[in-house]
């Protein structure tokens, strides 16, 4: 009887444990609380590519044996973009050597990027005396494929270089030279052999392949078929990352979902959205775009809400580091997308590091650092009541 009881009890316990397995696992965070994850509608084959890119981006750590450095900034892509979100000052990039559209004068002294770390036995780069420089916080990766799929014409349509409408906002395009490995899409707009940059703090990067190949090379010291020169010796060396891996990472970046707004029907968020429009934040932080054609069906003809016009704006002397890229002026910065802003703390170690170099520790502080073309909007923000400011920030944190 005792034995039978124990058998039955054991069996019941086993069944209970088995059935409850799924109940006792830690729950997945809500989809709108995460920046990573693929866009909707990918095919199984595309999911497999996404996973391959995810592994290469987040799990592949370079070592001296696999090509790291010898001078570098970080050991993996994921080091700078935890959870595909914004980075931390620990992996801030330093770019140096260019002050105007004539190009970088310090390429022979390690420019355009400082590799301030080195593998054992090597000395890291030092910032050349007198070189203008700027520090760049790693951006979030989310929604980049949608940004890439925005037609040039849509961005150009927002440009108002000479402020013809008289609103004090004069966004303009950064016309850049393309590296030879970039394939120009058929609908790309060209001006004197230059194309529209849309990625990077200065909008000096054309597409995600250029961004990825450049990051492997300049951030990790990893050469590829696309960027074959070793950042330390300046010599062309064998690829240290395969073309397939680079392409997988590009695909991963292209197919990361766009951030999902949270609490969008909350009264404060709705009120904050109205204030965002009222004080003309949206003049630069354009709420929405519609993407054009894309070979990835999930990205084509979609309405997205990046809250950026992807144009350069003069942000005033306070944010003028004296360094620039492409045809941007030193005080000009690309409008950073605001989507995902409220989740930044989850990738920045629990606090905000906003603006191009992370100098702002809160959204309020970031707004107050706006100058130049954004001065009028900042003045309007300053005139808001404390409650209105709170609502505006609630809206921004919902993005």
């Amino acid at each position, binding site marked *: 009887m005792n034995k039978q009881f124990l058998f039955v009890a054991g069996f019941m316990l086993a069944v209970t444990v088995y059935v409850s397995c799924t109940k006792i696992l*830690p729950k*997945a965070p809500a989809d709108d609380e995460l920046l990573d994850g693929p866009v909707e509608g990918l095919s199984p084959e595309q999911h497999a590519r996404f996973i391959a890119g995810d592994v290469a981006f987040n799990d*592949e*750590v370079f070592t001296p044996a696999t090509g790291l450095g010898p001078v570098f900034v970080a050991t*993996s892509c994921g080091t700078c973009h935890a959870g595909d979100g914004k980075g931390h000052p620990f992996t801030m990039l330093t770019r140096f050597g260019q002050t105007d559209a004539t190009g970088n004068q310090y390429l022979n002294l390690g420019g355009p990027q400082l590799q301030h770390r080195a593998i*054992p036995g090597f000395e890291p780069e030092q910032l050349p005396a007198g070189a203008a420089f700027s520090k760049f916080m790693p951006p979030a990766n989310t929604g980049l494929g949608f940004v890439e799929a925005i037609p040039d014409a849509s961005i150009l349509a927002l440009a108002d270089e000479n402020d013809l409408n008289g609103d004090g906002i004069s966004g303009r395009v950064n016309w850049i030279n393309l590296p030879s490995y970039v394939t120009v899409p058929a609908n790309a707009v060209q001006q004197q052999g230059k194309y529209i940059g849309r990625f990077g703090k200065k909008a000096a990067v054309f597409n995600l392949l250029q961004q990825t190949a450049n990051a492997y090379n300049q951030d990790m010291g990893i050469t590829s078929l696309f960027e074959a020169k070793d950042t330390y010796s300046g010599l062309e060396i064998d690829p240290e990352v395969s073309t397939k891996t680079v392409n997988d990472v590009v695909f991963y970046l292209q197919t990361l979902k766009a951030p999902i707004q949270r609490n969008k029907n909350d009264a404060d968020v709705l009120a904050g959205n109205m204030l965002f429009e009222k004080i003309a934040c949206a003049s630069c932080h354009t709420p929405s775009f519609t993407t054009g054609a894309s070979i990835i069906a999930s990205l084509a003809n979609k309405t997205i809400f990046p809250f950026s016009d992807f144009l350069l704006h003069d942000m005033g002397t306070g944010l003028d580091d004296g360094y620039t890229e492409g045809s941007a002026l030193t005080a000009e910065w690309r409008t950073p997308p605001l989507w995902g802003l409220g989740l930044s703390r*989850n990738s920045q*170690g629990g606090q905000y590091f906003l603006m191009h170099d992370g100098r702002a520790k809160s959204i309020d502080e970031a707004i107050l650092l706006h100058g130049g073309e954004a001065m009028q909007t900042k003045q309007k923000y300053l005139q808001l009541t404390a409650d209105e400011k709170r609502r505006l920030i609630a809206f921004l944190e919902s993005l």
Partner: protein
Amino acid sequence: MKKYILYSAALLLFALSSHAQIDPSLLRRVPKDSSGMQMNLDAVYNRPFLQIGKLPVALGGYAEANYQYLGEDGITEGHQFQMRRLTLFVSSAISKRIKFLTEIEFEDGTKEINIEFASIDIEMSPLLNFRGGVVMNPIGAFNQNHDGPKWEFVDRPVSATQLLPATWSNVGFGIFGKKFTKEWAYAYEVYLTNGFDDQVIANTENKTFLPATKLNKDRFEESFNGSPMVTAKAAVRNRKIGEVGLSYMGGVYNKFEEDGLMLDKKRKLHVVAVDFNTTIPKTNTAVNAEWAWINVDVPSTYTEQFGHKQQGGFIDLVQPVLKKRMFGFEKAVLNVALRLEYVDWNNGRFKSTGGTIADHLFAFVPAVSWRPTAQTVLRLNYRYQLKTDLLGNPPAKLGGIQFGFATYF
């Protein structure tokens, strides 16, 4: 076809009715050393061995297998069945005071095959024994006393395998000894062995990671840098209080010169560990704890991702709740147990912000185990683990069930 079936049936009948080739009466258990209090130092020989007749060789081993269903942040790899380890021991008493023992381990099927121990011990006196060969560096207690059947948990402690490199063996030589009185036992061990290599700070874990050196299979053939690693341990045991051990392991980990040419300065790492185990007399609760501190000379020009200081440890509490005949097993024991563990892989601050570097893990593992005999354990664990990245972002939450067995044979 009929013929084939007939032959097969005959063969089967013969097999069933025939006796084993080795007469079981010739197999005998090697008696355990009962000359004094057992300490962690003795773990390597404190295992069940089987001897055949008068052969001077004794055999033993253990196996562990398990099922697990774990998930991290809502994502699971589903139901997993794992053959964690199959370990074979061979020991031989070459003479009364010269012994040889080897331990060969197959991990995860045959994914890893390691000689974990293969040493000759020569006893000059109880206080002075020479040991040479592949030795298990006595850092902490788990590395020496790691056999699966001795533990109530499916996983080895994270601090033992992901902070310290258990199971960690190297080629080398040393001395050890033990002395005991009625109430006290004292033991020491000192070894010089091959040691770590630069994978400590050049690995795909993206952190200072001592276990990465285990990937260097050449360490059984040659030292990575020609500098011996020192491992030393002193332990004391009181019959009523329990055993406390203090151990140190350290040496140069990098290749500082090659072909007589200087490559880097000598970079050292130091590990200090404290371990404690006891059984509380009133409740019969077994307590087993270990904590280690690691200090690594990481180049200042390298990335802060690789920490200079690390620490971590675990405490296991095992409470027998039922000791009686169960299912025909005379001395079966049912235990409840709990493991708490913590590892901090990077105990430092960011140069850029002055903020604390996280990169740590906390886990608690409640367990139920059933021992039909002292040498076999069936264990059911629930694991809940929080792992925080370098920056201190919200932790990855892992949890789930593990069920498995481990047994000596």
